[in-house]
């Protein structure tokens, strides 16, 4: 009965490849997020969707494209992967968009070689 789940947990790939990370929440929340945590553990928001509508779009390379097919799912597609994309990517959800409690997934550890 995992609240926020992500797949895969680990992702090792070569530079230049395209990869996707999937996220699902079973909490009935309206809002979902993608965060990037770098090697220094700094956590930075990338995107947020509320009811499938993009409400936060931080300054990230346009190689990163989020997609929300429904309220329970938020996927992240990354084109032309670069070494600097190596990080842990966290998905999170909250009941609404107004800075409520966020529930984080277990993270996807991406390593670009």
């Amino acid at each position, binding site marked *: 009965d995992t609240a926020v789940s992500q797949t895969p947990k680990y992702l090792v790939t070569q530079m230049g490849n395209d990869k996707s990370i999937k996220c699902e929440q079973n909490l009935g929340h309206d809002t979902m997020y993608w965060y990037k945590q770098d090697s220094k553990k700094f956590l930075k928001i990338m995107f947020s969707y509320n009811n499938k509508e993009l409400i936060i779009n931080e300054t990230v390379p346009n190689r990163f494209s989020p997609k929300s097919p429904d309220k329970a799912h938020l996927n992240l597609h990354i084109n032309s992967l670069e070494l600097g994309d190596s990080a842990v990517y966290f998905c999170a959800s909250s009941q609404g968009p107004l*800075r409520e409690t966020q529930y984080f997934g277990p*993270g996807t550890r991406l390593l670009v070689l």
Partner: protein
Amino acid sequence: TQLLEQSPQFLSIQEGENLTVYCNSSSVFSSLQWYRQEPGEGPVLLVTVVTGGEVKKLKRLTFQFGDARKDSSLHITAAQPGDTGLYLCAGGGAGTYKYIFGTGTRLKVLA
């Protein structure tokens, strides 16, 4: 750009000791949250404070929001090995949907 600086960056203490972690900014936040993250997992919310000067207690953890809502502190009394983890503060600004996360404090409590 809003920044949240946490101090100390690293802290290693013996079981039973007290400690305080600080979260400082030059910006005013409408609310501030504290999270704990354990290795291999996502952050878990500990508390949200919204009023300047507010103090909240969670067992041995005491959280305070600064009067000017620019800073916060987390005090742990009689630390235990189970308190080990990465502590993150996160500030929410008025009129935005997002929280800005702090630089993090890695705490290790030795038995």
